[in-house]
Structure formats: structure tokens, C-alpha cells
């Protein structure tokens, strides 16, 4: 019996989410952590569109939510990179362990 496409897509997005989570837990470089975050956001988008297409094909709300998520992810990445560049200017490092000025 062939597996249904929905099952494959859900497994794919689960695995991609946890790959991103592994990167977020092990990386200490802030830009690498941001990349892992993008992987996690993308896996959620796959989930939204797969559910929309295979379970409720009469509506397109899942696609609408995906577009909102992409817009917010773009804003989030831009703000994160501005913070990283400012941090690099102050500490000459983008390692998460070196950003400890607030810890005293």
C-alpha cells in the first residue's frame, strides 16, 4: 500500500523542525542559531499548507496563515541581524557565550 502524501509531508515537517531544534541547541554562533530558527519556521509553514490541501481543501486559510508567518519571519530575521551587528560592534564577537554584559 502506498503511504498517503499527507503522512509523508507531516513526517518531513516533523523531522525538519527537530533538525532545526538540534541546531539551535548545539550551535553557539548567533547567525547559525538564526539559520536553525528559519528551518523551524519553514517546517511549520509546510504543515499549515499540507493540512490545508489534504484535510480542508475547500478553504485557503492555511495558505493565508503561511503568508502571515513568512512576513513575521522576515521582520524577525531583520531585527535579529541588526542586533547581531550591533553586538559585534561592541564585543567583536557573535558567540552567544560572549554576550554577557547584562550578567553581573
Amino acid at each position, binding site marked *: 500500500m*502506498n*503511504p498517503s*502524501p*499527507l*503522512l*509523508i*509531508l*507531516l*513526517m*518531513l515537517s*516533523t*523531522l*525538519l523542525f*527537530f*533538525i*532545526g*531544534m*538540534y*541546531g539551535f*541547541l*548545539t550551535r*553557539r*554562533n548567533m*547567525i*547559525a542559531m538564526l*539559520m*536553525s530558527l*528559519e*528551518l523551524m519556521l*519553514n517546517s511549520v*509553514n*509546510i504543515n499549515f*499548507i*499540507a493540512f*490545508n*490541501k*489534504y484535510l*480542508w*481543501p*475547500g478553504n*485557503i*486559510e492555511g*495558505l*493565508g496563515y*503561511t*503568508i*502571515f508567518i513568512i*512576513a513575521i*519571519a*522576515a*521582520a524577525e*530575521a531583520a*531585527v535579529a*541581524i*541588526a*542586533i*547581531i*551587528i*550591533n553586538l*559585534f560592534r561592541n564585543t567583536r564577537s557573535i558567540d552567544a557565550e560572549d554576550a554577557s554584559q547584562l550578567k553581573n
Partner: protein
Amino acid sequence: MMDANLIALLALSAFILISGILTVTTRRLFRAAIWLLFTLIGIAGLYFWMEVEFAAAVQIIVYVGGIVVLIIFSIFLTNQEGIHMPEALGRRKLFGLLAVLAGAGLTCMQIIARTWNNGDGSAYNPSVNKIGHLLVGNTPDSYVLPFELVSILLLAAMIGCIVIAMKSRPDEQ
């Protein structure tokens, strides 16, 4: 016997997962950015496979054309293009792997154990016309308010980025 459609889906999934794993495991930051680029292009291909062409176009424009370029710019601006990132601590790797395997196993078990119904039989037709009516239509169930809020959010983020990344003048320090 599997049909060609399913084989294409499996090949796309394998491509996405392999480049995703390389994104989080390669020790060169610039190569990680390039692997992220391949992952995002693979996901755009997945949207094409699902025949959601609008999402695929948005994915390519915003992620591949915008966010990856922004990440590569920031790698260059922080002089990290040639660095080898140090190997993660063994302890951190072990516990990260444990958490990830436990979470992925639990979620996959839930997905397999559930029976998914096959929708209401109607065709999925995400035309741009329908997307427009969903986002800025004049019916009570359209998403006009979130749409406008997102535009304010983008404006605020843009101004915030400029303020954060702006060099302060020497006489202010």
C-alpha cells in the same frame, strides 16, 4: 508500485532533509548559509509539488531572495566568512540529540497512530483571486485587520533595525 508523483515527493523530501542536516552540522558558517539556501529552494519545490504556486513564489522571493541574502551580508559584515566554528561540547551534543530524538519519535508515533480523513472531496484551488479575497476582502471573515497589523509590524521592524544598527556619533558617547 509507486507512481512518479510519489517518487518526486520522496526525492524532494530527501533533498530537504539532507541539506537541512548539513545546515546544522557543517562547521563553516558560510557553507551553512549555502545549505540553508538549498533547503529553502527545496521547500519552494515542495510547494510547487503541492500546486500552491503563490506560496512557492513568496517562498523564493522572501526567503531565498531576502533572508538568505541578509544572512550572507551579516556573515560578511561580522568577518565570519572563513571561520571554522568550534565543535559543540560533547555534553551539549548528547543532550541535544536526546531531546531531539525523544521529541521526533513521540511526534512521529502520534502522526502514524492517527487516521487522517481525506477531506471533503472538493478541489483545492488557491488562486490569487481567492487569496486576495481572503486577505483584504470585504466579507466579515476576511483577514483585513491582521493584514494591516502586519504592515505596521514591518514598518516598526524596519525603523527598529535602522535605530539599532545605526552608528552613534562620537560626541554622544
